[in-house]
């Protein structure tokens, strides 16, 4: 894996400011809440909601194929469009969108490094104007199930030394001291973590300005915890969005071949009857 590969997945705020009006490129903002987009966003950016646009609310699933076709079509996106995704929280939900679009085979994908926070801190232009684009034709490919882990996969990998589970939640969630971060609803019955998982909270991937750490720093972070490129790696968190950022780092910035996001995450595992859970003694 080289810096070239990293450069393919990431674009800088300056690059976006220089290229944002190019017709083959579409900016997409995905935040923790839609209010951020409504307050102001990059000129020309469409806003997607992870809670309504990027999921199947009935089945608790990622966006169905036909719904993704419709979403992309109404966003004026074709199979050849380069999609640059950004959002708040150092791109948590931007990575969630990136992961789903990867599953469905969209190849020209980029994350704006640093996301909304860095753009605003640098004083780059924002607008309230919501753009409209002529409907485009989009045909989804996939899904590529190698990028997504389900419960049986995690059950199987948990016991294998050739695999690594990465818990991207806070240390307090990992140890079971809390069931959810402060101010967030508790979505599980028990605290702790999946046996054998290592704790690498999502924010260890990022710098203070919201951008990703260097390739060398990230490689050191994961390899020092035994999460090496030769393993089957599964990342998880509470609902799968923080771990999509971990997935992005491992897959797209470090080039790990076999890395999956377990979007069932602790909301699924922490509610299972008789599922094994590790937590330190109190």
């Amino acid at each position, binding site marked *: 894996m080289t810096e070239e590969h990293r450069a393919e997945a990431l674009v800088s705020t300056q690059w976006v400011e220089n290229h944002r009006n190019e017709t083959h490129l579409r900016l997409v903002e995905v*935040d*923790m*809440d839609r*209010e*951020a987009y409504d*307050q*102001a966003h990059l*000129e020309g950016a469409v806003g997607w909601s992870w809670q309504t646009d990027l999921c199947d609310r009935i089945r608790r699933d990622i966006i169905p194929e036909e719904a993704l076709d419709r979403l992309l079509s109404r966003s004026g996106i074709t199979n050849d469009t380069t999609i640059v995704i950004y959002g*708040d*929280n*150092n791109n948590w939900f931007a990575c969630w969108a990136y992961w789903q679009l990867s599953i469905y085979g969209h190849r020209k994908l980029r994350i704006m490094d640093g996301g909304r*926070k860095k753009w*605003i*801190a640098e*004083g*780059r*232009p*924002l*607008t309230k104007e919501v753009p409209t684009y002529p409907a485009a034709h989009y045909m989804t490919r996939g899904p590529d199930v190698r990028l997504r882990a389900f419960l049986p996969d995690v059950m199987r990998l948990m016991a294998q030394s050739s695999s690594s589970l990465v818990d991207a*939640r*806070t240390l*307090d969630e990992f140890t079971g001291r809390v*069931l*959810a*971060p*402060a*101010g*967030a*609803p*508790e979505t599980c019955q028990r605290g702790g973590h999946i046996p054998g998982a290592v704790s690498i*909270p*999502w*924010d260890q991937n990022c710098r203070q300005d919201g951008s990703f750490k260097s390739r060398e720093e990230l490689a050191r972070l994961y390899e020092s915890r035994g999460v090496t490129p030769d393993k089957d790696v599964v990342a998880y968190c509470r609902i799968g969005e*923080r771990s999509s950022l971990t997935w992005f780092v491992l897959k797209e910035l470090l080039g790990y071949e076999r890395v999956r996001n377990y979007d069932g995450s602790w909301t699924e595992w922490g509610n299972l009857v008789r599922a094994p859970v590790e937590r330190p003694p109190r």
Partner: protein
Amino acid sequence: MPERPEDYQERQVSIEGHPARLRTFRLGSLFYTSVDNVDPGGVLVRVEGSTREEAEQRAIQEARREFLAYTHR
């Protein structure tokens, strides 16, 4: 017309005993403030106001309600 955000600032405070981070910037005549829970950083509220003080005070009040509604100790 697009405008450039100005006066971006962030600082940490304590709300109901929980660490909280305020981020505020000005866009045109309005100040926009968000509050997150620092670790992991989930945004709890976003508000706007005509001054920095007004936006931040409102944000803290609304965040207090969120912390009290959802956090169990």
